[in-house]
Every structure is written in C-alpha cells, then in structure tokens.
C-alpha cells in the first residue's frame, strides 16, 4: 500500500489537471480552427485544419493590439503604485500605535463587505470634478483607491507576524522607522507582496466597467473592451474571439511565472530570529 501511495497521489493530481486545464485546451483548439459563426462541434474541431490565422486577424482587428498595450501600461503602473501604497498603509496599521486605529481599520474592513458596484456613479462624478475623465491618471487613481483596503488588510497580517525583536538591531544602529520598513518588513514579506502584485495586475487587467466608463477616446481603451467588441450583437466569431482571449491571458501567465518564485519561502522567519 505504501508503495502505491505516490502513484495514486500523482494520479489524482494529474486528473485534477485535466479538469483544471481542459477548458483552456478547448479554447485554444477552437482558436486554431477557421472562423465559424455556429459553434464548431467537437468532432469537427478535432478534425479541422489548424492554423494561426485567427491570431493574426484578431491582433489586427477592433484595435486589439492597441488596447492590449494600453492595458499593459495601466496594469503595470497600477500594480507598482498599488503595492507601494498598500505596504505603507499596512505598515502604518501594523507597527504604529495611534488613537482610533482599530476603529479606523474596522471601518476599512466594513467597506469590503458592501458591494461596490453602485459606487461607479459617485466615483465618476468625483473623477470628473478633478478633471480626470478620459485620462489614465484618473483610471489608475480610481483603481488604486479601490484596491487599498483589500491589499492593506492582506499585508497587515504578514507584517504583524514578523517578530518585533528584529527591529532592535536597526534601532540600536540609529535607524528610523523608514529604514526598518525598508530593510526588514519589505524583504520578509516579499512572498505576500508578490502574491498581491499578481492580484493587482490581474484585477486591473480584467476590469472593464470602470475602464469603459472613464475612458472615452477610443484609442485609449483597454483590453477587456476590445474583447467585448469581438462579440457581435447577433452572432459571435468564436475562433477570433478565443484567439483574442488567449492572447489576453498571456501577460498574466508570464507575470505569474516571474513572480511565483516569491510565493513560498519556508525558512524565512526561522532564519531571521535565530540569526
């Protein structure tokens, strides 16, 4: 029985992969077949000729390439700024005493409960009064502002778990809060920050309601809108649509592969204290 365990376990995992990845495989298969309005049925799909035509066509249609690059720009900047802001705010909650801290945190927390969907109208009005409609600054500002609370909540826990004793060495050397923040908290929380970065990127990458509302100049639009434009009022070109969708998935996968090394680093806290 013991000898079988590794095989069984691996088998379970592999079966799971089939379920997890299956939809994507089908999507890519469809994107490789020639364009079709009715649904290509599975037998037809497997037997038909495969080509990358849909990819070239999709890249050039509906301003897809332009919106893709726009989204890339916005998502990267939002991710960087969002992480900076969240880590500072989380540090504030984790290590600074001040009156009303817990109440303020609970207020923040509560805002995560209430659905944020209707907020688009007041938010749009505020952005308009700042004169930032149809600008990337306005869009990024809105994305960062709405993301602060969740990210802060996530990071605060990580920061609090870092033993306070580690700060003593810096304090003895005459460093201030910022140095502590910079040289202890950030490095030790890189896994968490990495995770957060991926979420910030993918959340921004995927967002379309706010993006569509705020950005009026067509050439400034973002990727999800391009995807929507591939869907017609009466019928959808599935091959093209899925080629576009596959291309839309690539950046996030690349970012994930780059960041994933950060994910789990088991011996950090042990090393820090013992050293």
């Amino acid at each position, binding site marked *: 029985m013991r000898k079988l365990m590794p095989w069984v376990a691996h088998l379970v995992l592999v079966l799971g992969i089939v379920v997890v990845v299956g939809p994507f495989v089908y999507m890519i298969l469809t994107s490789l077949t020639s364009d079709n*309005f*009715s649904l290509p*049925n599975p*037998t*037809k799909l497997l037997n038909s000729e495969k080509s990358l035509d849909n990819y070239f066509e999709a890249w050039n*249609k*509906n301003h897809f390439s332009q919106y893709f690059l726009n989204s890339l720009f916005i998502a990267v900047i939002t991710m960087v*700024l969002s992480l*900076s802001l969240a880590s*500072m705010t989380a540090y504030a909650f984790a290590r600074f005493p001040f009156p009303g801290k817990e109440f303020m945190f609970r207020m923040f927390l509560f805002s995560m409960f209430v659905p944020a969907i209707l907020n*688009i*109208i007041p938010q*749009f*009005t505020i*952005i*308009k009064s*700042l*004169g*930032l*409609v*149809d*600008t*990337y*600054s*306005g869009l*990024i*500002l809105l994305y960062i502002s709405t993301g602060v609370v969740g990210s802060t909540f996530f990071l605060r826990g990580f920061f609090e778990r870092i033993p306070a004793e580690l700060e003593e060495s810096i304090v003895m050397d005459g460093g201030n809060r*910022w*140095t502590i923040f*910079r040289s202890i908290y950030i490095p030790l929380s890189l896994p968490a920050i990495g995770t957060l970065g991926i979420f910030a990127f993918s959340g921004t990458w995927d967002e379309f*309601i706010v993006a*569509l*509302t705020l950005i*009026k100049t*067509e050439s400034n639009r973002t990727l999800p*809108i391009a995807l*929507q*434009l591939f*869907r*017609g*009022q*009466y*019928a959808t070109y599935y091959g093209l649509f899925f080629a576009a969708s596959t291309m839309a998935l690539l950046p996030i996968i690349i970012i994930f592969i780059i960041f994933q090394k950060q994910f789990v680093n088991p011996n950090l806290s042990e090393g820090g204290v013992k050293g």
Partner: protein
Amino acid sequence: MRITKRWLPKLLLVLLIATVFLAACGNNEGNTPAAEEKPVAAPVDKKEVEPAPAAEPPKPVTVEFWHAFGEGEEKVLLEEVIPKFNEQYPHITIQGTRMPTENLDQQVITAAAGGAVPDVMRMDNTWVPRMAKEGVLQAVDNFADFNKVVADSFDGPMATNYYNGNYYGVPLDTNTKIAIYSKELLAEAGATEAPKTIDELVSLARKLKENGKFGITIGGPDFWNMPPWFWTLGGTITDDKYTVATGHLNSEASIKALETIVSWNDEGLLAPPILGGQPGTWEGLRGEEGKPASYMMINDGPWFFSILGDAVKDTMIPAKMPSGPDGKSHSIIGGQDMVFFNGAKQPEAAWTFTQFMLSEEIQVLMAIKTGAIPTNKNAAQADALKDVYYLDEYVAEMETAMARTPSPNANQIGDVFGKAFEKALRKDATPKEALDQAATEIDALLK
C-alpha cells in the same frame, strides 16, 4: 544606498500627486473654449444700402456620435458615410465612438450623471422613453425641418421616439422579423411555397409532426420573440395610446390567441426553443454536423441573411409571416433611433448629420451594405433595394408591423409579459389567469 531608499516612498508620493495635477492641468487646457471673439468692424453711420456680406465660413465643430455598429457596419460608416458627409459639410467633423453592446445602458446613464455626454447617439428604440424620462435626452420637436422628417419616416419607428408630449429623437434604421423557411423541409411537408395564412402553416406543421420535425418555431416567450405571433393571432397588449393593458392584454381575443399558442405547444407543433430547448433556432433550421434540419421555419431579422450570406441564399426562403384572422400579419418593430443628449455641445451640427443619415441616399446605402431597413419611406421603396433579394419581404412586413409598448418602464413590462406567457406555456396558470395578472401589473407600470 540608504539615502536613496529613504526618499523612495516620498518620491513615489510626489510622482503620484504630480501625475494627478499634470493631468488635471492638461485636461483643463484642452477644455478651454476655443475661438476668441473677432471684433467686427461695424460702420455706424453708413446710410447706403450695402450688398449682403458674404457668409462667413462656418466655424469648424466636432460632433460626438456614439454607436454600437458591428465592425462591418462601422467600416461603412467610416469609409463611405462620413466622407460623403464631409463633402457637403467640410467644417463638421464627426467623431464616432463605437460602444460595446454589453452594458451600454449603464454607460449612457453614467455618462449623463457625470455630465460627459456625446451629442447624438444611435440608440435602441425601446430605450428612448426611459432615457427621456430620466432627463438624459433633449426634445427635438423644435429642430429645423423636424416636421419634414416626421412626414418622411414610417409611423411605427417614429412613434418609438415619443415620450410625454415630445419627440426625443428620429428613427434611423429599423428591422423586423419575417418568416424564414427551409426549402427542404417545406418540400417534406408537401408545399412548394411559403404558406400564406396561419391555418396553412398549422396544417403543414401537422404533416411534419409525423416525421418528428417542427413546423412552427417561436424563439421564446419573451417580449421580442412572442409578440409577432401573439399579435398576428389577434392579441393586443394595450390600447392605441399605450395607457392601459386591462381590457386589451386580457381581452377575449388576446386570451384566445394565447390559448391557440398553448394548444400548438401541447400538440407538439412548436419547436423546442419556445421553452429553452434544443437545438437553437439557426441550428434547427439549417441543421448541424451529424444532425439534419428539424425546423421548417424560424422568425428572424435581416441579419440572418447578411451574416450567413451565400450559405443560405439558395436554401432558405424569406417570406412575410403568415396572416392571421384579420388577413394580415403583425410582426415586431426593432431598430435604432438617433437621439440627442441634454448638454450636447453641438446639437445643430449633430442634427445636420442626422438629417444626412436620414437622407434617401444614405438610407439606401446602409440598407444595401448592412441590411438595415430604411426608416425613410422613399428610401424603402428605392429600386436599389430590390436587388438585395431578402429586403423586399422585410419592407413589406414593416407596413403592418407593430411596436412594443413605448414606456420608460419598457424593460419591466417586457419582463412581466415574458413571465406570463411562460407560465401559461408551462401550465402554471391558465391563459386567462396569466394574462389577467400581467394586465394588472402592466397597468401599474404604465402609470
């Protein structure tokens, strides 16, 4: 290196704030109103009569135009329509923005709430009363030559622009659903041409039923698929002024119409889509890989032909819907209107553009290239249209087609209607009960 890192967060902070301000300043410059006033030298004491001064060249203006054209249609707009427009009106630039159809009403109301509206929009005609009521649109009755546009347009589509005493737009294009027959299955039912009356259709359906196929396809119980059949069979929804449903939706004739439809379903004459079954309308009509066609006919708009093109040219027959008890058929009016926004910056120029879009030449052009049925009566009769083999039937159907109830609560009314019909079909209520209740609910919605 410690020093560098110290001002990193502050740098980021400053960068963030700077970006905000720079963008704000940048935008404000863009928003400053352009033209300065040129002082006009006015001779004060001249007594002689001067010849009328030559008209000043009109100031260049930009009209913002929202639309949800598909890619092919947008191409026609950008490559043919707008250049033609600019030949006549070089000083008016049309800035067209293609909006995705998904979520479009949310986009419109948010833009309006935030004061960032376009000048004119090609809007689904069932939205107009709702948008007008909310204060999003401005009335167009007083625009120059408005009455002429009314006279030139079909009544049905024109009526979709009406709300509370004013018109808030003009119809741009329209569409309706006709009957599309599969030649193959018609033959199987023993007919060589499309049935002219409902009774003929029913008898063909009965013959097909023996082969396990369906002669009548109603796409669903909803407010787009059901009314053509309901109306053709003699049902009505409200009075002519769209003020009350009781007495109309639950009139004898209406109840009888619904009972007929329910009996068709019970008899097995109705294709599965009526209650969400398989296959879908297009697949059932054309057949799929490994499955032969099983529907003799469906209802659909001109896009069926313009999208499928040659694939259906020889296998399908477009025909007017079969006529009902009053000797006519009554299909449903769909389509788009050109509406004008409150707060539009260039309403006059936008109106000029709209009149251009409504001109015979452009209406015919759009009809041929995109399958959009003209709302301009003359354009609809143009010879060029006859060359598009399917448009004839659609134009003919338009003559007796009816509009859905125009109301700010059109969506809710549609929901009530759909649910009532579904209930009756699923036998959760008798036709009379379902229609009685629906009529009461719709009355409240029409107040």
